[in-house]
């Protein structure tokens, strides 16, 4: 039984054995920096990236019961980066949806709430925003694959993260790069040599 009484289930997540705590700390110290950097790049906002990194590790913390039983660390790191990139990517897409909503309605409706941060939401001018826009337009798996590879994950870790056979990583990555490069060239035609 997962829970016997309400109170136990509430306190249980807060009380892990020392062994699990040690394992968690180890994973945290080894992977936090990279997770944070990936999210910084993706979101372009250090405070947001920091909060999100903390949230990602909270998820790891809550899943330590299962993580502990997993002997293959590639699978653990794969899982961790997948969660991180997935969170970041969803935030990016949500931001984009909000932006388009404001663009559509703000002009028509005088009472429309102003965007939380216009500089961030309606990013159309600057290059970084364009790159984020390309990512947000891509198939999520492709975008996440590019981001994870860029963060330095090996094919084996990528395979574990995407739950595909290691042999599929090469073709998927090639495809994703091609899609990105095509969109990138359309956005920045002058960069084509």
């Amino acid at each position, binding site marked *: 039984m997962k829970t*016997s009484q*309400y109170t136990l*289930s509430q306190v249980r997540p807060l009380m892990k054995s020392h062994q699990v705590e040690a394992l968690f700390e180890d994973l945290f110290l080894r992977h936090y920096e990279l997770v*944070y950097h990936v999210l910084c790049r993706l979101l372009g906002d250090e*405070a947001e990236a920091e909060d999100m990194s903390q949230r990602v590790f909270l998820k790891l913390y809550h899943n330590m*019961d299962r993580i502990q039983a997993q002997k293959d660390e590639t699978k653990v790191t794969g899982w961790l980066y997948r969660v991180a990139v997935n969170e970041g990517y969803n935030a990016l897409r949500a931001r984009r949806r909000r932006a388009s909503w404001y663009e559509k309605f703000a002009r028509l409706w005088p009472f429309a709430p102003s965007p*939380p941060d216009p500089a961030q939401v309606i990013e159309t001018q600057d290059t970084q925003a364009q790159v984020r826009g390309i990512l947000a337009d891509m198939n999520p798996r492709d975008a996440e694959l590019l981001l994870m590879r860029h963060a330095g994950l090996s094919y084996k870790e990528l395979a574990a993260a995407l739950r595909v056979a290691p042999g599929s990583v090469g073709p998927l990555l*090639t495809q994703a790069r091609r899609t990105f490069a095509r969109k990138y060239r359309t956005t920045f035609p002058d960069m084509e040599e």
Partner: protein
Amino acid sequence: MGVDEAKLAAYLDGELSEEERERVEEHLAGSPWLRDKLERLRQEADQVNQALDSLSPVSAVFSASQALKRFQSQLSLAPGPNSLADEVYSRDHSQLVWESPSLWAEIRSGLKSVRPRRGQAMQDSIQRKRMTLVAVLILTIPAITVAFILLFNSYIPPLGSVRLRVAQPGQQMLTPPAAGSILPAQRGIQVDPLGDTQANIEHLKALGFGWVKFQMAWKDVEPIQGDYRWARWDEVIGAYAEKGIYVMLSIVKAPDWARPVDDDKNVEGLPADPATYAEFVARVANRYRGQVQAIEVWDEQNMWYKAGGVGRIDAKTYVALLQQAYQAIKAANEDTIVVSGAMAPAVSVTDATNGALALDDIDYLQRMYANGFKGYFDVLGAYAPGNNCPALADWRTFEDESASFRGPVETRHHSWCFLGPLEAYREVMLANGDGDKVIWVTQFGWAVADSPVPGYEYAADNTYKEQAQWIVEAYRWAADHAWIGPMFLWNLDYGLTAPDTPFAYFSILDTPAYDALMEMSRAEEKEK
């Protein structure tokens, strides 16, 4: 052997063994065409890298150990587990509002850690919302009080009569139920879908389990809206179905994209729009036609960690989800049995500031009925944990001098013992004219552990022999009660797949319970 694009990509990314690399280089040397291809791949990869490199690098000085400190301070693990556990068990269950400063401080600080930083304007707006909420509460409290009195008056029978009525055979309430009689198999067990499928099927056959239960996490199958990952489930469900084992899926855990923007993402929660869940379960019913016989719609919806956070437990929201799920499942495949989500047997706990963490399951069932539950389930799902109570113990009178875990004796409540919730739900169902409906026990079991982790102290009181005996007694009891349908034992193989976790305490592989169930199954075979 040729060199394809995937090989070239792996070559480019330094992911080949030395041997493979040499082979690719040999090919490259002899083929201008291949070199062109490699060059194109390199350009594409460079373009991606340049673009991603251009995204803002980190400027602040970074320290992982500081980040860890921040994480831990927000999680606030400081007080020892024992002090917490003591507080938990010594509290008086008759109090509805329980305020234990240290525990709440911990839980709150845990929640706080994930809130994104907010600007002043947002803070102000939150403040305004809070004040509005307080005003609304003040205005509606008299109405709520009246509603409560009406609700409770209509249902709570004197305790003595509960047992009498349940125990007497031959009354209207014991009419053989429709859904239960369609499917003869009465015993089920929960199995790890990631475990060894073939071995587990053999175990189920040997033990006479006709049903298997899996928990299917919606968020794992549809992590991105419209993007489904069925492969593993196709394999597992197909394997069990092929061997004639009935499958029940408990479908829980909404993906973040489906959830309300403002609920607590630290815990599981219901979707913002019930239609998203309804669509998902309908897909399951349709996809696994003839393979999945029953779907349990959510579970533990009376607990904050499955309802989207503290203060968000609401029977009305759940019933709305169930109604849409029921209609969608029936439209997709009318043979699928819809099991209402099993509540967690619990005591109501309310945090004065943030609202309910848990609602008493009997109370919650009443509220479900008050919000249109009737007619939207085929069978009622129930969890019946045994803790350290024997299977047939009466929670009102149970005594155990030797037990080190004193909860069931010192703070008497129906939720401590196996029969408690089942008999109470039966009463509520009868009061609502659902006497012909069956209860399926979708999770029950007893834990055994020498030195259990905190939270599972009761497991130290139980022996493997008791575990075996109580499981058999529970199944025999169920066979004598027509209003009980299949009962799913928690669990078969988590002892193998998740050793050293509390899941393993309940696992029956290599225990006397395994032998006792095999014995039971053989005896039944002989009778036939």
